[in-house]
């Protein structure tokens, strides 16, 4: 009996110790009323769908309602400014992509901002949004290389669209053109949405568009063909479902900017560290939740989680590269 009691005591102590350790690992939930996810675009788009996926699955984890607030305008800048205007208490976060987050706007914005990239911190990254060169299914060019050869031979003969202007996509395109020695040789135009560009690939106004391709419907699409995807070979997950060649493999060299861009959750950098820690914990838990993963898979954009440190490294690097390429954009736009 004494032995049993002793064993029970040891087990109890071990359980207590483990609980304490777990309690120490789990940051304290500071959210009392709600968490507001600011979506810097109107309802209905890709960024909105990402915010809504958290809204649908996060409440059980954090124990308070998740509100999606659409604050649109200025290519995501208004939503970012709005989040910046809120107190630094971790109750407002903003979702943006690699092209339009605070790391990009702090470089690309044509007007002065009341903040800098250092005033922000990523909480983590939860989706990989890959852009790619898309042509009509019946295009007279079967590969991106053929298009590159064509514009070299006959400048202005191919109309290329990208999302912009004023987004990081401008710089992706300039990097691509510089690498292929085709700067100024494409008939380059801007579109405000992938949907409009897709419509004009069908009308024949566009020959090729650099738009989002990381959705399952682009595989074997009856109207479109993806000529190349902007993803680094080494970043391709083993189960990556998209079979197209990478832009780097077509160009035959490594590119700095064209690569995977990640959807990121941002908060203000002066939010108390323990709150940032809790937010990272909560978003990570949600991103690894089976229902969230299922929802994201069905949306056609597989879920993932990259922690704060990795995200910070990725975005810092992106920020520096954008600054490096900015003079090229200004020169080109002039």
């Amino acid at each position, binding site marked *: 009996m004494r032995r049993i009691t002793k064993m029970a005591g040891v087990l109890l102590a071990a359980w207590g110790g483990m609980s304490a350790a777990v309690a120490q690992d789990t940051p304290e939930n500071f959210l009392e009323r709600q968490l507001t996810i600011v979506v810097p675009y109107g309802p209905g788009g890709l960024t909105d769908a990402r915010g*809504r996926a958290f809204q649908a699955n996060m409440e059980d984890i954090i124990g308070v309602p998740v509100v999606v607030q659409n604050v649109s305008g200025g290519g995501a800048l208004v*939503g970012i400014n709005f989040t910046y205007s809120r107190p630094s208490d971790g109750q407002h976060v903003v979702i943006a992509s690699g092209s339009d987050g605070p790391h990009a706007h702090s470089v690309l914005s044509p*007007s002065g901002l009341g903040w800098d990239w250092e005033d922000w911190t990523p909480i983590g990254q939860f989706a990989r949004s890959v852009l790619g060169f898309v042509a009509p299914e019946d295009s007279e060019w079967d590969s991106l290389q053929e298009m590159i050869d064509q514009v070299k031979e006959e400048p202005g003969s191919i109309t290329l669209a990208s999302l912009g202007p004023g987004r990081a996509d401008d710089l992706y395109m300039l990097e691509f053109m510089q690498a292929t020695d085709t700067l100024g040789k494409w008939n380059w*135009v801007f579109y405000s949405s992938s*949907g409009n560009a897709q419509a004009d690939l069908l009308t024949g106004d566009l020959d090729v568009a650099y738009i989002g391709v990381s959705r399952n419907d682009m595989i074997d699409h009856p109207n479109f063909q993806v000529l190349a995807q902007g993803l680094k070979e080494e970043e391709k997950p083993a189960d990556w479902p998209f079979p197209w060649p990478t832009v780097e493999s077509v160009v035959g060299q490594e590119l700095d900017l064209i690569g995977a861009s990640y959807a990121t959750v941002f908060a203000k950098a002066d939010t108390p560290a323990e709150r940032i820690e809790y937010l990272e914990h909560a978003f990570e838990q949600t991103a690894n939740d089976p229902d969230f993963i299922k929802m994201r898979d*069905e949306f056609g954009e597989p879920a993932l989680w990259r922690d704060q440190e990795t995200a910070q490294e990725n975005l810092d690097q992106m920020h520096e590269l954008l600054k490096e390429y900015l003079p090229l954009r200004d020169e080109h736009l002039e």
Partner: protein
Amino acid sequence: MYTGIGDALLILLSPMNLSWIALGTLLGLIAGTLPGVSGVSMMALLLPFTFGMEPETSVLMLIGIYAASTYSSSTGGILYNIPGGAAGVPTTMEGYKLSMKGRTGEVLSTDIYASFIGSTIGFVCAVVLTPLFITFATLFGTAERGLFALLALALVGTGALSRADPLRGLLAVGIGLLVGTVGMQPNTGFVRFVEGYPQLWDGFHLVWIIVGLYAIPQIFRLATLEKYFHAVREMDLHYGFGEEFRRFLSLFRRNRGMIIRTGLIGSIVGALPGLGTVASSWLGYQEAYRSSKAKEEFGNGSIEAVAGAETANNAAVPNTIVPLLSLGIPGSAASALILGAFLLAGVQPGPQMMAVNPEKVWTILLGLFFTGVFFVIFGLPFHRVAIYVTKVKPAFLIPAIVAFSAIGTFLATGFEEGIYITLGIGLVAVLLERMYLPVANVLLGAILGPTIEKELLLAYQIGGVGRFMQPGAASLVLIIAAILLWGLYKNLLPSLVEIWSPKSSQRVS
């Protein structure tokens, strides 16, 4: 083509789905009637409640809101001169004037029955002509879209809208075009006038313009013209279902050709990406004017105008979904939300959808038709009560309008500065009205101007002048040139002849 229609009917007729369409329709009716609260805002508010629903159910509720809010975007306009959305503006212009003459019941019933006929024509066109619409949409590139918007502007701006006072009418259109230039030029990225204000880089939001142009001046009128409204409140507003139905039947018999034509116009324009219900309602209005024998009523309260505009914009509704269902390309904010609901539910709209999930395509198209039935069922009793809004004292009506306008304006973009911008637009609108400049023309210019500029410049960037020489674009250029020349000939020539005639010279000497 028609595979899956039986399954779709079974899905639709389940009590659960019928209830959700009914609820969506009811919410859409409310959203469209309130100033500034658009169908898109209501859809966005309800999106979280669709999580976990069957995909068909959530989409049915959303399309219920979408279709019903388009229909009811004119209800507020008829009742208190503030349209719920841009598609309701032509009806507001004519309907409110009729309402002030004590014909509220007649206008509301014309609105509802014409809308139902429009949604039925639109549904039939979507079912029968979808393959044709897809071909049509793929022929409509940048140049054609820009020129078509220019054609709509030329037709409406120089036609019915400016009939009473062409000079002021065109000046107001010009002011609207100027308003449309504010913000970032989408082809070049150059920010015009407002570089330091990112809130305005996307230009003035349509909800700000509508609320500013209509709600604010109306608040001033309500506050200052008490005697005028007192007269209206004394009127008998009897609303008999049978009596109003017979009155509409008589209108329909007299104008059935026009109503069917406007339905067809709405269906075709609705299927063109980017133009949608707003251009349809203006073109329906213009067609009603063109075929009317009582042109003098336009601008002073024309029941034919209400029938034409409402038939056209409701016919456009089912067809605005066609590019989404058939090509997977959302042509409007509302279609983007419906696309989002589909994707969240794991259903991928697009060319393969008719092959893989035909029942889902049919569920949506039939669902839109059912919404038409529901808005008649709900709309008639709603109108019976709603007509008494015209009898509400300004002391009660003004705070309600202010509150809903502020909420709607805030919901549109999510930032409070929008409310102040709307107030600014409203004060300018009051001044415009004092100068007898019609605000509907300003709105027309502000809506079509950015589309015309963006698409035409893009077309020029893509193919230079040669892009406008392609058959579709060239035909539109010729039509526009003919309209403008005819307008000049009709309006300017008689004046010039008079000035240069010998009699006139003698008078001068």
